């Protein structure tokens, strides 16, 4: 187990370097960011040269990348164009997005798995058909439609919530945005759980458990669900990374100042330091989440062993 974890951690290094290099190059390809700083006019050449020097843009790209990585390993993520340290931006943005992701994941787990179990056990019944139809609709409708609609109905028409989230972004204000963010994944979790449950419901060990005279809820939670959750856990694990990085649309609609907001602004202003910094952290989150998922397999299914 220990050796397996170490091997996985070592594998992260090339992935990490490759991902950051790719992002670095991609932001660079977008062109010179200094030109956008002076409004509808040419920066005067002297100031432009100074700014270029200040942000290290006067060096060749490979050198910029090496300097940047060197700084990153000493904990310095650089400075955004508005003079703020990227690390400060992260300190304000990540907690917000993490809260949003937690809300979304909790929704996914609770609603998704409950729906999945119910439909899986009642395959072909009206409940199953209607939930399936519902998930189909949710998957088909883009997030920004769901988001804007929910905002209009709950925020403006019924006045149940504030249409936008306050800068502090506490959990209670994130419930609706979290649900919107989770909606598509939630539908997938439902479908995955349903299929898995339906398949395993006919397996030998379930029949044995029923034959033993175990109560129904125990059969379902201890035997059936535990074995059926493996694909679902894989999905939710990878979804953590996707939710954190992919919240741009939801964060824009509800004016949440999280990672999506900073990334969007960083890309618009072509701010390499912000974009690469945030993406780097997201890459790490993604890698760690994947590792945790793999380790969870062993917990769920004792037959799986890592060496």
């Amino acid at each position: 187990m220990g050796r397996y974890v170490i091997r996985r951690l070592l594998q992260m290094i090339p992935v990490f370097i490759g991902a950051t290099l790719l992002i670095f190059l991609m932001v660079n390809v977008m062109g010179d960011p200094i030109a956008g700083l002076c409004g509808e006019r040419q920066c005067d050449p002297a100031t432009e040269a100074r700014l270029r020097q200040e942000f290290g843009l006067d060096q060749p790209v490979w050198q910029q990348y090496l300097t940047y990585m060197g700084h990153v390993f000493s904990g310095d993520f650089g400075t955004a164009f508005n003079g703020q340290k990227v690390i400060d931006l992260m300190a304000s943005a990540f907690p917000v997005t993490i809260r949003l992701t937690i809300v979304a994941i909790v929704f996914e787990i609770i609603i998704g798995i409950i729906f999945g179990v119910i439909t899986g056990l009642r395959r072909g019944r009206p409940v199953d058909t209607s939930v399936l139809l519902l998930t189909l609709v949710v998957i088909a409708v883009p997030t920004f439609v769901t988001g804007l609609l929910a905002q209009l109905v709950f925020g403006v028409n019924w006045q149940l919530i504030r249409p936008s989230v306050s800068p502090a972004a506490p959990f209670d204000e994130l419930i609706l945005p979290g649900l919107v963010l989770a909606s598509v994944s939630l539908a997938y979790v439902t479908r995955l759980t349903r299929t898995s449950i339906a398949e395993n419901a006919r397996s030998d060990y379930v029949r044995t458990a029923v034959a033993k005279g175990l109560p129904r809820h125990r059969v379902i939670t201890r035997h059936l669900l535990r074995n059926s959750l493996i694909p679902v856990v894989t999905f939710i694990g990878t979804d953590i990374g996707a939710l954190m990085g992919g919240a741009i649309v939801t964060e824009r609609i509800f004016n949440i100042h999280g990672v999506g907001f900073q990334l969007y602004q960083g890309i618009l202003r072509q701010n390499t330091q912000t974009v690469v910094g945030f993406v780097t952290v997201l890459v790490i989150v993604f890698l760690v989440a994947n590792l945790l998922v793999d380790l969870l397999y062993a917990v769920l299914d004792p037959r799986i062993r890592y060496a």
Partner: protein
Amino acid sequence: MRGAAHAGRVACAVAVVLAASGCGGASDVIGGPNGVVRSSWGDPQNPLEPANTNEVQGGKVLDMVFRGLKRYNPKTGKAENALAEKIDTADSTHFTVTVKDGWTFSDGEKVTAKSFVDAWNYGANVDNNQKNAYFFQYIDGYDKVHPESGQPTARALSGLKVTGPRTFTVTLSQRFSTWPDTLGYAAFAPLPRAFYDHHADWLAKPVGNGPYTVENYTKGSQMSLRTWKGYPGADRPRNGGVDLVVYTDNNTAYTDLVAGNLDLVDDVPASQLKNVRSDLSGRYINSPAGIIQTLAFPYYDKEWNTPDAAKVRTGLSMAINRKQITDTIFRKTRTPATDWTSPVLGADGGYLAGLCGRACDYDAAAAKQLIQRGGGIPHGRLTITYNADTGSHKEWVDAVCNSINNALGNDKACVGGPVGTFADFRNRIGQRKLTGPFRAGWQMDYPLIQNFLQPLYYTNASSNDGKWSDPRFDRLINEANADPDTKSAIRTFQRAEGVVRDRMAAIPLWYQNGSAGYSDRVSHVALNPFSVPVYNEIRVS
């Protein structure tokens, strides 16, 4: 499942705690003279230093936190003395400035002549990386503190001299009769010692001499400004303060305004213009701002820089149905342009409606004829380059192309050329590789006709992106700048504008209005000619 249920409980507990501590401060909505206006904002692009802020969001704050020598009247746009007691000159080159007595910064430091001179020297010095440094370019010694390349050879502008606690002299490197009227721009604001001595702290919480003080600033999300009780000026705020809340998307800000969580949105999204009047039951302003949109041309491209190409440009101008586009796409938040300045200048300030004449009237037949006489569109096809990330530019560029295509009876005569980001758009302009017209918007820095002409069309001027050059125009501008009589100077500026028209240096499209919506909690809301809300006049009921 056990773990999940547990996580849910924790989430609720945290939510309760946060709600108890966090929401108390945000929701204390009080009215009357101490009421706080909640207004939408965008994250400023640059650090909030006066000489480093060149966009409207940062400018909004500076307008509340600082007062300079002059202030532009929020209604008329005229430059009026604020901190200046008088600014004297005999020759339009040497100026003596007297600062009013009794002004202090909100930290108690007195505003003296030195507060101004130090601030201007700081802004001009190339070592400080200030993006508005070129505002000081007319002051003598600018080339020493801000050389085109290399190290500065002086720390201070030789043209600035403190002659007393409240007086200083300014020597310009050229005659510039209306120079005092440029001093209302934020870059010329005075700065307290704290700005230099504790720079990082100052940036975290700017201190100025304006009617508001910064109470709390969370970068990237909110700034709370409160009325400064000791403000000595005449324009004391009628409210208790302003909370500026950052919105990523102006649609969300608008939704918040409709739901009653926000009092003022100064950027109504184009998609909502259709229903804004009914949504807000008339609490909507649509007033002229000092912004003009034009199409500029690349004169470094040989084919555009010929006498015949001028005919083509005039023809193109006549092929654009401005009225139809401003009515349908912009819902009258823009007005078809008939000159190259802006109505906010007023007739006295040099705005001359109809100066463009027939060249700006829609006439498809004449347009087609003119373009043919000029040898057709250079390179065979017109590509209008624009940035697609902001300002719904795609809609109007497509409409302009449509209009041109219809006039020429050719579906492929004109196409839009979108560029992903503003920075990249500016890049392509800077690299001078464009072969067709490109979007050019101009927001005035100060309400003078000079500001609409010289930076845009003077040879090698800072915003002359198309590199247009005409000796006749340059000569008239120099003549107008040197003229001590404002009236005749403006007439000369208008003659220079006539040169722009005859050569159709840029096609004027429309004057842009400022638009704002407000809640029923506030009244006396207005926009100044810079399309910034006049915050100090707003009353909270």
